[in-house]
């Protein structure tokens, strides 16, 4: 019936044969077939192990970075691996239309866009004590959950501390608190700074601009540059910042939440406002190194007003469950070549995957418990 059967009967009788179900098979062919299948499976398994980073040279991956966070801060199930401690806010952004000069993004047309976000402190320990020197973060999602939403994770720094994923990882490990001192190992810090002069320079720049009293009067910056693309297709490098329009209540005496408590009280009393400022980069300004400042004389465009009206505890369904991935961008804002962008997107995604699969824990700061 088939060619195969015809071929079987053509085989010379003296050849060694074995059987396969109802078919008879030449030994040599069986050995060949088994060897090829074995080879295929070996290559298949090897490739699988290699691409999954189980064999081969050690590589810096999202998993390695997240494991680094767990080594430094302990396993904090259910929490963001970085910026673990925070509170969720909501409000809106009123665009004045000035941003259209640089970007065709809908958020820059005159009008209002809803915003959800989260104030946080840098670090992976959710029960950490507030300290003015810990970098403050503000993650925002404009137009969530729409198709043209814009997510940004900003900090109250002048420049970022690292210009490569390796630098970030090395700094993370060097900052691990050792023994009973409650401080990182000075020798490890010194070694790190010697290997990463860009971080030493960035620390010096940030120290020239000491942190403000609280969350409410902090200027939050994108730090990383992006390209804004307008209707005519012109691409402009931009770094953005949120400049506060209010003073902050002084830090409270609470030993744990000295910065979060005044923020919660202030937001209950009145909305908080920031101006969204777009700094226009010149060709000489670096767009792939967030440790380097741009020239202070660069043109700045006031794009509108951010108003945050409500504050609440991290809980399922609110901004707790938003990954402030800096690569969630609307049409009209594009990533630069800064290597931190892809790396942040990767690590934030891996952190989101880990924490969403972990048991839900009680948040550390309960907004409703603050009087």
């Amino acid at each position, binding site marked *: *019936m*088939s*060619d*195969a*059967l015809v*071929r*079987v009967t053509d085989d010379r009788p003296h050849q060694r044969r074995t059987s*396969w*179900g*109802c*078919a008879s*098979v*030449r030994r040599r*062919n*069986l050995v*060949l*077939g*088994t060897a*090829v*299948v074995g080879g*295929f499976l070996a290559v*298949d398994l090897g*490739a*699988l192990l290699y*691409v*999954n*980073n189980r064999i081969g040279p050690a*590589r810096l*991956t*999202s998993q390695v*970075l997240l494991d680094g966070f767990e080594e430094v801060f302990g396993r904090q199930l259910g929490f963001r691996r970085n910026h673990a401690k925070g509170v969720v806010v909501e409000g809106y952004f009123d665009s004045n239309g000035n941003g259209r000069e640089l970007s065709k993004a809908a958020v820059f047309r005159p009008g209002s866009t809803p915003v959800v976000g989260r104030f946080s402190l840098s670090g992976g320990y959710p029960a950490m004590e507030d300290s003015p020197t810990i970098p403050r973060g503000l993650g925002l999602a404009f137009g*969530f*959950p*729409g*198709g*043209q*939403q814009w*997510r940004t994770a900003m900090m109250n720094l002048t420049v970022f501390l690292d210009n490569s*994923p390796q630098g970030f990882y090395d700094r993370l490990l060097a900052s691990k608190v050792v023994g009973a001192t409650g401080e990182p190992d000075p020798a490890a810090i010194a070694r790190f700074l010697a290997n990463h002069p860009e971080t030493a320079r960035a620390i010096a720049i940030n120290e020239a601009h000491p942190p403000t009293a609280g969350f409410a009067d902090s200027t939050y910056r994108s730090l990383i540059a992006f390209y804004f693309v307008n209707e005519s297709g012109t691409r402009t490098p931009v770094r953005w910042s949120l400049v506060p329009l209010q003073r902050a209540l002084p830090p409270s005496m609470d030993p744990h939440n000295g910065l979060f408590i005044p923020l919660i009280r202030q937001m209950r009393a009145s909305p908080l406002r920031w101006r969204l400022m777009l700094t226009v980069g010149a060709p000489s300004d670096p767009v792939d190194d967030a440790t380097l400042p741009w020239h202070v004389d660069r043109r700045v465009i006031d794009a509108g007003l951010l108003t945050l009206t409500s504050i609440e505890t991290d809980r*399922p*369904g609110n901004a*707790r*469950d*938003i*990954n402030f991935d800096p*690569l*969630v961008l609307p*049409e009209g804002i594009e990533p630069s070549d800064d290597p931190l*962008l*892809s*790396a942040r*997107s*990767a*690590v934030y*995604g*891996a952190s*989101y*995957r880990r924490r*969403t*699969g972990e048991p839900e824990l009680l948040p550390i700061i309960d907004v409703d418990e603050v009087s």
Partner: protein
Amino acid sequence: MTVVRERSRHTALTKVLHWVTAILVFTMLMIGFVMVNSLDDYARLVMVHKSLGVVILVVMLVRIVNRFTHRAPALPATVGSIERKLVVATELSLYALLGAQPLVGWAMVSASGRPIVVFGSVRLPPIAPFGAELFSVLRQAHSLTALALVVVIAAHVSAVLLHSLALRDGMLSRMTSPLSR
């Protein structure tokens, strides 16, 4: 003679669809595994991954229609009755896994609340509501489906190689011989 030839081989369309799927799925699995371990190339790879996912979804829809409109040729006589059941189960699993995987990926990104951007700038609508728990379930499902695909494809390739090389029953040529009939 021509009747026998036609019944022992797949149609030209089926062959093209099969090999296009094979190349796409091999590429996708590799990109998927590399991507989640990559930092520098993550963003680029994710865009390629999501875009190819859309292509595979379209190819699989065509294949499902094609599978119903074109009967597969009879299996060689070397395939016994138990193995015949395995062949059917494998084929069904492959269709189910390959059809489901792009949808799980799409739903998973939807559940994370972010826009689904493919081919650089095309934005697809969400097909699942925002929710961290739902995301987590779908994210795990996406990885498990990928591993299941690796296993089933390895079994499929091994079986075809073993038949073609050990039993010399022309199993591979059903999918490879010249496209024009």
